[in-house]
């Protein structure tokens, strides 16, 4: 059992850290306040291979593994949780098109997705179908060389901003298929931008499909295989989002260490008080445990371990809970200043909160874990 990263993984991690420190961290507060996302920084990230991390090299992918991706998302989210998480969603789209699309579809979309000249949104969730994803109602009906799509997708990251939408829709009673709908297609529209607690550096809205007509060539894989693709993407998505919690929590912990060393009360730095020391020690311990679980889960996907799904669910549940708790503790250690936006801690608390809800709620993670125990 070897817990050390390879030489390349260390280089990948350090490079992602440098990019995060200089291209994301200085702007995160402004993006949050202005609720804006920068195409420029996303294209820069894509130039380093971050838009197609675990996609084959043929059409511009970086051909990395899931552990590599976790290292990258952890570092990127140190600088901006919201931007890192958005990149993770885009990666899911790029990967799904490349892994399951036919050669023609891949050649049409993957090079642009990998360069982020085309930004992708993933649309599975609906207003009435969240944890019970298979109960989705959006429908696609074949009409000659076209499919006609109708339905509403909810909580869609990048809605109104992205260039292509990967839509899961019913093609029969028990058949779900995956489609690509390009921005500008007649019948595609968006709801009002949602007002959110966090993740403000990316837009979220409903995606509305009304008699939206797309060419048959935009079907990914075979009709009826969509739900299988969605399931195949879950484990990796959970590792990614868990990794995003690691990064946010790591940045919050580092800020707390620095702040408690500088803040003087009762004649000494507050880090000289044992309460502070014990709190920091617990935060670092929880973070380390979460990191080990996420890295191992990523490694298990890379090795196709039969127990990977349960391990990914455990890692996602633990890392996102721990991440939120660590960030909240860091806020407490900052006292009143932690509550102010200028210190950047409250943003991390707000951004990390949703990680306990999406990519499968942490309650669904427990369902998956329990199912694997009791089968």
């Amino acid at each position, binding site marked *: 059992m070897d817990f050390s990263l390879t*030489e*390349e993984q*260390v*280089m*990948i991690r*350090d*490079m992602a850290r*440098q*990019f995060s420190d200089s291209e994301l961290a200085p702007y995160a507060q402004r993006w949050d306040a202005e609720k804006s996302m920068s195409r420029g920084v996303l294209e820069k990230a894509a*130039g*380093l*291979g*971050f838009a197609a*991390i675990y996609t084959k*090299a043929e059409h511009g992918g*970086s*051909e*990395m593994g899931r552990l*590599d991706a976790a290292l990258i998302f952890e570092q990127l989210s140190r600088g901006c949780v919201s931007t890192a998480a958005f990149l993770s969603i885009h990666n899911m789209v790029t990967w799904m098109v490349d892994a399951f699309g036919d050669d023609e579809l891949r050649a049409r979309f993957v090079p642009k997705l990998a360069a982020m000249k085309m930004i992708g949104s993933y649309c599975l969730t609906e207003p009435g179908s969240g944890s019970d994803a298979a109960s989705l109602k959006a429908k696609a009906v074949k009409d000659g060389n076209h499919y006609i799509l109708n339905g509403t997708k909810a909580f869609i990251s990048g809605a109104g901003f992205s260039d292509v939408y990967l839509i899961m829709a019913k093609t029969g009673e028990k058949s779900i298929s995956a489609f690509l709908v390009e921005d500008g297609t007649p019948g595609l529209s968006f709801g009002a931008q949602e007002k959110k607690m966090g993740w403000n550096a990316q837009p979220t809205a409903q995606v509305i499909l009304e008699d939206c007509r797309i060419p048959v060539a935009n079907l990914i894989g075979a009709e009826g295989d969509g739900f299988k693709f969605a399931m195949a993407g879950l484990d990796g998505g959970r590792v990614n989002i868990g990794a995003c919690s690691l990064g946010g929590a790591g940045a919050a912990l580092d800020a707390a260490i620095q702040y408690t060393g500088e803040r003087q009360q009762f004649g000494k730095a507050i880090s000289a008080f044992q309460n502070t020391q014990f709190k920091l020690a617990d935060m670092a311990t929880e973070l380390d445990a979460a990191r080990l679980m996420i890295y191992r889960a990523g490694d298990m996907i890379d090795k196709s371990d039969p127990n990977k799904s349960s391990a990914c669910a455990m890692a996602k549940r633990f890392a996102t809970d721990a991440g939120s708790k660590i960030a909240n503790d860091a806020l407490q250690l900052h006292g009143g200043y932690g509550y102010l936006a200028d210190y950047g801690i409250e943003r991390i608390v707000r951004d990390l909160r949703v990680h306990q809800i999406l990519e499968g709620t942490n309650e669904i993670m427990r369902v998956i874990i329990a199912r694997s125990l009791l089968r």
Partner: protein
Amino acid sequence: MKVLVPVKRVLDFNVKVRVKSDQSGVDLANVKMSMNPFDEISVEEAVRMQEAGTATETIAVSIGPEKCAETIRTSLAMGIDRGIHVKTDAEVEPLAVAKILKAIVEEEKPELVLLGKQAIDDDSNQTGQMLAALLGWPQATFANSITKDGDSLTVGREVDGGIQTIKVSLPAVVTVDLRLNEPRYASLPNIMKAKRKPIDAKTPDDYGVDISPRLTTLKVAEPAGRTAGVKVADAAELVSKLKEEGVI
């Protein structure tokens, strides 16, 4: 033109430096090490020269322990073609580095040696100059801009008063300053490609260079801590205080 780029593995610039308790040096156990930031700039410049078609081949050299191969690998991921690692665990002073580099230059026959103006660990700022002297080549130090002009280079140098522009004939040694360029990040595909680029392993003996130190370090100490100041009421008091302290 073939370009040789020496790179040094140093304490990462973000690390808080700690002096060993016996004052024999800086504590390097369990601290992050990376490429000397000035060398990142020379690597970037060499890669740009290659992209522009001015450089035909780029070679990185590092002298030091096993782990220096990682520093070379970083330069390969940024775009350098191949590496030479001169392995030694001994401390190597600038003159010894310059002598090894001279031997490599004689073997590889580059037209340009491009290196950082100094390393951020010992701040010697000597290697480039010594190498130029040993080779009998012209040198341009603290480069802010470099353009190739037939058989010579026009180099803008950062000097106290501004930028001094000089022309050096090739072959030459150029040391680079901070503002020459902004080094790129190595992309994921290039990190993986770097794995397959060759690094030759050598030793100082291969080049017949005696690297035994010429200097003795007596002691390494932390800079004196800042002591509390006093407030003065007016200019007159300020002047008298400064006189008292013997500053003026």
